[in-house]
Structures are given as C-alpha cells and as structure tokens.
C-alpha cells in the first residue's frame, strides 16, 4: 500500500493544519516543562539522605518527585532558584 493511498480520504487541509498546529503547541509546552524539570534535577544533583523515603513525594501527584528536594517539608515550594 502506498502512503498516499493510506490517508483518510475525506481529510481536509484545514483539519490537518489545525491538528498539526495544536500538536506542535501542546508538545512544545509539555516538553519545555519536562526538560526544565530534568535540568533542575540534574542541577540539584544526587542527595545523600539515605534511609529517608522521598517524603516530599505523594503518590497522587507523581510529578512532585521532581518538584521537591527530599527532606523538605511537604508543600514547601522552593522557587526562583
């Protein structure tokens, strides 16, 4: 099967343009923040608080893993570093 024949036949240029733009915007948004998170984790470096669980992290907000430094009280945000 050719790629040209695989496309949805009634797909319009307008629909394809809109979805491509939305995809680009959402991806840029998500991945900019993801990269920022990873960069902050790398900057913070490994921390040697052994035996302590990741107390700042709570299972119902998984991304809190990247947000807080272990050992800090829950909800204590350190911003602007």
């Amino acid at each position, binding site marked *: 099967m050719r*790629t040209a024949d695989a496309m*949805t036949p009634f797909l319009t240029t307008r629909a394809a343009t809109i*979805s*491509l733009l939305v995809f*680009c915007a959402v991806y840029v948004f998500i991945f900019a923040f993801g990269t920022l998170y990873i960069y902050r*984790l790398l900057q913070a470096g490994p*921390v040697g608080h052994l035996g302590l669980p990741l107390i700042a992290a709570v299972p119902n907000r*998984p991304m809190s893993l990247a947000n807080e430094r272990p050992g800090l009280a829950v909800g204590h945000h350190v911003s602007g570093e």
Partner: protein
Amino acid sequence: MDTTALLLSRLQFAFTISFHIIYPSFTIGLAAWLTVLEGLHLATGRPAYRVVFEFWLKIFGVTFGMGVVSGIVMAFQFGTNWSVLARMSGGIQGVLLSYETFTAFFLEASFFGILLFGRSRVAPGFYLFSTAMVALGTTLSAFWIMVNNSWMQVPVGYVMDHGVAVPDDWAAILFSPVLWVRFPHMLLAAYLTGAFCVAATGAWYMLRQTYAAEARIMLRMGLFLAAVLVPVQLLFGHLNGEYVVHYQPSKMAAIEARWKDEKPASEVLLAWPDVAQRRNLFAITLPAPLGSLIDSDSLDAAEVGLNSIPPENWPPVVIPFFAFRIMVACGMAMLALAWIGSYVNIKRRIEQSRLLLWLIFLSFPLPFIAILTGWFTAEVGRQPWVV
C-alpha cells in the same frame, strides 16, 4: 484526494514520532541500568549505588511520563489521519499494539508505583524485582513496536482478503528474520543512549567538582557499557543493511546514492545526490568492490541502482543518504569516546583530562541524533510504500 492534507499528515506523524522516540530510547536503557544499580546495592551494600539509584529514578520518572504522553497521542493518528491503513492492517497492527498494552504497559504501570513510593513499604528483594519488571516492561514495549514496524517494512504471515490483511501465521510475524536484527539494533541504541547520558552527567559533575563518588560511578559504568556495546551495535547495524539489500533494494540504492546497477559495486562515501539528473555531484567514491563488500559481504555481488527501478517507486534519495551517514558518523564518534574514555579511566587519569571530560559531557546528544537519523533512514527510505 488532498495532497496538502497528505503532506501535513505525514509531517504531523513525523513530528510526533520523532519527538516520542527521544524519550523511550532514554528510559529503556535507564530502566535496565537502574536494575543493575539496585542489584549492586543489594549485593555490595555500598551506599553510593543507592544515592545514584535514587537520583536517576527521579529523572526516569519525568522522562517516562513524557514518553507515555507523547506515545499515546501518536496512536490516535492511525484512526484520524491514516484510516485506510488502519482498515487494511488493523488485524495485525492493532493486535500488536494491544499486546503492547497488555504486557508492557501493565507491567510498567504496576511496578513503577512500587519503585517510586514503595521503598519503605516492600522488602528489598521485592523492590529489586519491581525494578527488573519495569525494565522488562520497557523492553517488551520496544519489542511489540519493533514487531509492528518490521511488519510494515517487510510484511509476512498474512493473506489479503477483500483489501484487508488477515494474519494467518503469527509465528512468521513474531519470528520474522527482519525483526530479530532490528529489535536488537533498537535495544542496543537505547542502552547506548542511557550509557552516554549517564556518563555525560558524571563528566559534568566531575568538571564542576561536585558529587565526586557518584560522578565516578556514573562515568565508569557509562563508559564501560558503551565501550562494550558500540562494537556490537555496529555489527547489528551491518546486519540491518543486509536485510535492506535483500528486501528493500530501492532503499539501499537511495542510502548509497547508487544510480546504475553495478557488479561489483563501488561505494559513494560522500556526495550531493542530484536526483533530477540521476547523478552524484562532488562525489568521493571508493572503488569497487568496496560497495559490494559493505552491502553484501562479497567481492563480486551485484548491487541494484535506482535506474533499474521505476521512478514512481523511488524513495526520496537525499534524506536517507545523509541521515544514514550522520548516524554512522555519530556511531564512530561514540566508539572513539567510549574506548578512549574507558582506557583513560582504567589508567585513573580521567579526572585530570579536562578536555576528555568536556568531550564526554558534550557527547550526550550523539545517541539521540544517531537514533533519529537511523529512523529517518528506515522510514523515509521505505517510501513511497507505507506497508
């Protein structure tokens, strides 16, 4: 049929899939490495392994999340933009994607929770088991995707019934010879990505003179793994080339920018392929039989040129030609860095060689570029066919 919509749909799929592959290729390698670290920590009791583990686990978590987010929306495009393909091949590709969900995603989702929040809640042995299960999950995910893509590259084990591909031999699909060179190639690429990111982070900390013990572990393990795996990867890359010669001669002709049939063939090292005139400009060419030797392991094998393929069946030439060469160049640079770095590290001089540390630090994009250009070669070279 709307050709602009077609171009935009292809752009959209290329964009989402290129973005997506960055994350799994990192997490597959990282998950396996986390398992090794946790095993080492249990076996030796050295706290530094545990510190490194906790550190990379957090990064794994974020990367994993982005991999899932970018992967899920990708599959929707089969329904929205490529519904004719979905109707034709859904009996095979849809089934394979469900297997991925059943095996890989369920394993990953269940045990990843234990990894993040279960350290103080489960026994150490079970924690190690959970790490291994997450690693197995990521590997299985790669496996099903590679089965899927290998079937699109070289379809086997099906019959056409009223325009629908009906699977009649799952064993042939799962044990396709193409799959068993492509899956290891992807898996090794993922391990190398993990290895180089870890080594680069270690080199970065060493340059900043922080976290010395952890940096040493990262640098040593990353470089050593890469030093062992890059040669294996080059071998599998070569085996991949053999299946392309056999099943996809037009892709091979495009990769090599070979216009005429040659026997034995020469090898174009670097050139600017001029598609309109069917010739290469500024070509640096190695004489025959090097082309036959590289493509077919033989001194006198005949190699197909684009001139003997109808132009409407040609893939684009320029993209596979250059993407392939960039991939190989990245591979060679990684080989040099891994071997030199490991050697200097064994001699215990790596902390003094700041230039080498800088090079290793700056090398982390190399595996990603190699993976992206490798996939560009595979997918653009397959055109104009989707299956």
